[in-house]
């Protein structure tokens, strides 16, 4: 109570003084009324001022009072230079907001532990091996039988948990027409109990749900999905859910904050592992395996033996597996079996998004931090200039007895005010920016989703950042101000160059940071541009893609009739069918065997296409012909030039044959096309072959086609506008075909460059901000320097110095500073670019034009920033200056 009342009294100091005054006055009145001599009574009190001071000191917290006074004074200082202060606050806010925003993303995606029990004991199992292209790869997928063998082997020390990827799947809740998409994850029954998760409704899976294939047709909804899709309706329990030809019963809803282990994707529905038909297949690796150490097992001593044990068990399983390597050449088997088991801590979850965006987020954080640093240097410079202008005042304060501590406090108060204001605005910016950047991360139809809570982790980071900013801003000016020697300052100034030297150092620092940001940005922007302008080999213009499914499959004839119907629709130029879109999410490779020889070590990639697909995609045929309606698979094939160069180097491929495995039927090459990117825009050209959509079995009977993509070249510029018409047209035919996804080829290609686009956009934004801030900083320093050297300039002019001479004096060392800073920045850039090389596409840090761009931008900015100050200096009227002296 007492401290509180003292704090309260400190805040309302004037009222306190009035109260004390009133009480003493009433005392005097009383004394005089009771007959004391007024003068004697006054004298008995001593000095009224002294009495009040003493009383005030007792009743109010002095330190707080002085702090408040300093804050008030700091506020008035900020208000005096409204525009400068607003610019300072805004630039700091942008820096702080960007940093906090970047931290929120980094923390949420990479660091924040999953909301499960024992997340620190959770590990991810993967295997390192040499990939088909001879490069080391890490394989994180396991087959269910292998998983079970390992679970048994580990059960004394750890539990193994199987969790599949969150696949975006077609599901239906009621009638067949009502297809929706949901992220489905298959999990082993021990996941929920081991993670210590409690149902929000109904029950979750337990180990008994793993009892056998197809025996537990149950589904658990995630809380998020239950909330969004069903509005938290408790009646959802018992509802049937149809996926393909399976029906599941909803038995429960998961806990509130658990969205699965795949950071960046929110799981909608959990299904038991055994319900996936792949769960019995020994040779199909399809889910991830997590390992949770039992409580009390020491990871330091137990992990390595466990890893070796499991590695041996899994190796033995695969070596014995009869179905795993059917028809695979021995060399490939040796390569596949030669792998190392790796445990990675997985407390923060595991996802492709993490892998893909780790570097990206590192860059984002770096750019944000650099912008904050530049902003800090700017504001510190501003404060140094102000402090220099106040050197007189500081000296006066010291000479009339202000403690140096108090002076430091005065300046720190001002920087704290700035930082506090900036943090408030920056916080708002971070509230908006983190979800905004996240929303741009994945294709719009399947956005990345992450919980971005503003909890103590974020607040702590923000607070730490604020303290750092206060120190960076205030410490230097504060120490400088407190070391003022009053005698010298009052006599007319100390060494007038010292604040300028300090500011020049700051400018060099700022230019270095700015140059680093510019350099990295130009690399990212160039990467993105080169990727965007990469020759595709096909046209994306006016191409609508209808990804279509057909349940258990329909004969090619049905697909062709549907294509015919689409062709007849108004606004359609041409229609073709392919197995899946080029550059989409599906990529399938195949062995290639020439003349019955064992398959070559390099696989080729393939796509089923209908006749006319090549012309619809505007892919030319450089030799041979396109498919005709009579062509089948196996039977005929069209290959790309890399395929020819890989398997038939220096030969005419037309008429030659290859098969998709040693004992597979042969395909005759009927045509050759130029290379087009197949699955990844960034990857070098791969061997690709096209086979007809019409697949026949050994008896030449046509087989059913389960899914395909109608590629429609429309007459209209905006193909997506026709999508609903086509969708209806297909639905009306009631032939079992159903459109599951609509997109355009342009969007499919664009989705390939999302990360590059995002980083180029953000980098360009940060570069612009950095350049602007550096320009402002430069302008401020030069302007200050001209103002301070007015006397000198006047004298120089009076004794006949030429204008060029004046300009040289003013700008020579600034440009030297800029040059030094830029060199340092470029050197830093070389270092930093090595770390992010994996994000570049066909650019190198050493490319001359990558250096030219930042250098030019910097030069132009510095010229613009120095111009006003130089003009001002040249306008100096020597007579006026000298008269004023």
């Amino acid at each position, binding site marked *: *109570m*007492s401290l509180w*009342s*003292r704090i309260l009294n400190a805040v309302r100091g004037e009222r306190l003084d009035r*109260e*004390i005054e*009133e*009480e*003493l006055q*009433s*005392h005097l*009145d*009383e*004394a005089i009324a*009771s007959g004391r001599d007024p003068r004697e009574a006054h004298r*008995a*009190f*001593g000095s009224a001022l*002294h*009495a009040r001071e*003493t*009383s005030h000191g*007792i*009743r109010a917290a002095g330190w707080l009072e002085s702090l408040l006074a300093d804050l008030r004074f700091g506020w008035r200082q900020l208000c005096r230079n409204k525009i400068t202060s607003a610019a300072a606050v805004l630039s700091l806010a942008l820096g702080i907001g960007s940093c906090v925003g970047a931290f929120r993303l980094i923390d949420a995606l990479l660091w924040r532990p999953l909301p499960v029990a024992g997340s620190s004991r959770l590990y991810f199992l993967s295997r390192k091996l040499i990939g088909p292209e001879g490069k080391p790869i890490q394989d994180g997928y396991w087959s269910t039988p292998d998983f079970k063998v390992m679970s048994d082997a580990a059960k004394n020390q750890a539990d193994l948990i199987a969790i599949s990827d969150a696949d975006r799947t077609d599901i239906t809740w009621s009638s067949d027409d009502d297809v929706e998409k949901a992220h489905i994850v298959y999990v082993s029954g021990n996941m929920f109990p081991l993670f210590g998760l409690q149902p929000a409704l109904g029950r979750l899976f337990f180990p008994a749900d793993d009892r056998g294939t197809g025996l537990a047709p149950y589904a658990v909804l995630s809380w998020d999905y239950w909330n969004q899709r069903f509005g938290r309706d408790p009646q959802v329990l018992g509802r049937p859910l149809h996926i393909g030809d399976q029906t599941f019963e909803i038995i429960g809803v998961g806990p509130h904050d658990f969205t699965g282990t795949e950071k960046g994707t929110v799981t909608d529905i959990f299904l038991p592992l055994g319900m996936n038909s792949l769960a019995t297949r020994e040779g199909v690796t399809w889910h991830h395996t997590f390992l949770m150490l039992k409580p009390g097992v020491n990871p330091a001593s137990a992990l390595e033996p466990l890893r070796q044990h499991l590695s041996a068990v899994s190796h033995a399983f695969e070596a014995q597996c009869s179905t795993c390597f059917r028809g695979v050449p021995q060399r490939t088997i040796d390569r596949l079996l030669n792998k190392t088991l790796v445990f990675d801590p997985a407390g923060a979850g595991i996802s492709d998004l993490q892998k893909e965006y780790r570097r990206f987020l590192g860059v984002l954080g770096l750019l944000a931090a650099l912008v904050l640093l530049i902003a800090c240097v700017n504001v510190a410079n501003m404060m140094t200039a102000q402090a220099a202008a106040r050197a007189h005042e500081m000296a006066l304060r010291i000479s009339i007895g202000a403690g140096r501590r108090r002076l430091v406090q005065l300046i720190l108060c001002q920087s704290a005010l700035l930082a506090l204001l900036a943090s408030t605005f920056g916080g708002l910016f971070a509230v908006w920016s983190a979800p905004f950047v996240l929303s741009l991360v994945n294709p719009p139809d399947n956005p990345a989703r992450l919980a971005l809570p503003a909890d103590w982790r974020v607040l702590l980071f923000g607070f730490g950042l604020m303290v750092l900013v206060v120190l960076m801003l205030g410490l230097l000016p504060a120490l400088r101000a407190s070391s003022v020697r009053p005698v010298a300052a009052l006599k007319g100034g100390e060494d007038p160059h010292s604040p300028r030297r300090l500011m020049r150092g700051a400018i060099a620092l700022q230019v270095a940071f700015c140059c680093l940001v510019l350099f990295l940005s130009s690399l990212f922007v160039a990467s993105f541009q080169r990727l965007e302008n990469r020759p595709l080999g096909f046209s994306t213009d006016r191409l609508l893609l209808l990804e279509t499914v057909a349940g258990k499959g329909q004969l090619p004839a049905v697909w062709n009739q549907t294509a015919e119907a689409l062709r007849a629709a108004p606004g359609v130029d041409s229609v073709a069918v392919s197995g899946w879109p080029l550059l989409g999410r599906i990529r399938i490779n195949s062995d290639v065997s020439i003349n019955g020889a064992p398959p070559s070590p390099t696989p080729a990639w393939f796509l089923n296409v209908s006749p006319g697909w090549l012309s619809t995609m505007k892919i030319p045929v450089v030799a041979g012909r396109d498919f005709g309606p009579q062509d089948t698979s196996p039977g005929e094939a069209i290959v790309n030039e890399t395929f020819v160069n890989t398997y038939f180097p220096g030969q005419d491929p037309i008429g030659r044959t290859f098969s998709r495995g040693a004992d597979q039927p042969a395909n005759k090459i009927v045509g050759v096309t130029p290379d087009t990117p197949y699955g990844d825009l960034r990857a070098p050209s791969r061997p690709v072959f096209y086979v007809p959509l019409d697949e026949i079995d050994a008896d030449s009977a046509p087989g059913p086609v389960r899914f395909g993509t109608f590629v429609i070249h429309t007459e209209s510029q905006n193909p997506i506008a026709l999508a609903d018409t086509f969708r209806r047209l297909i639905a009306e035919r009631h032939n079992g075909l159903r459109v599951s996804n609509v997109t355009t080829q342009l969007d499919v290609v664009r989705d390939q460059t999302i990360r590059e686009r995002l980083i180029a956009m953000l980098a360009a934004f940060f570069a612009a901000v950095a350049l602007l801030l550096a320009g402002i900083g430069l302008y401020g320093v030069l302007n200050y320097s001209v103002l301070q050297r007015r006397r000198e300039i006047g004298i120089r002019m009076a004794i006949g110095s030429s204008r060029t001479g004046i300009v040289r004096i003013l700008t020579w060392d600034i440009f030297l500073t800029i040059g030094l800073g830029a060199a340092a920045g470029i050197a830093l850039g070389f270092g930093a670019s090595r770390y992010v090389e994996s994000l570049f596409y066909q650019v190198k840090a050493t490319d001359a034009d990558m250096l030219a761009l930042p250098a030019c931008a910097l030069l132009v900015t510095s010229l613009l920033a120095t111009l006003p100050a130089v003009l001002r200096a040249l306008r100096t009227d020597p007579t006026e200056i000298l008269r004023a002296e």
Partner: protein
Amino acid sequence: MARTDSLQGSLDLLVLKILSRRPRLHGYAIMAAIASTSGEVLRAEEGSLYPALYRMEEAGWIRAEWIKKDSGRRARIYELTAAGKKQLGEEESRWQSVSLAINRVLREA
């Protein structure tokens, strides 16, 4: 400069004692009460009375309140808190033991 105070160390005790007997007094009344009950021997100086009152108020031994007097002016009156009562007990016993000790010394000498 703090003046030497004839009541050094014992002013708190006197104020607390007065307030324990007669609650709700203002500063002048406390001073008057000290003077009259001590037979005009002890005098609390205004310059030290008020600081002492504020100090004790901050320590939570007494609490203050503004009241309106008949004359229309406001007066700040003080009364003992529970903590003040305890403090009074302690101060009293300390005073007793000190004065006992001093008396003993005086007798011996």
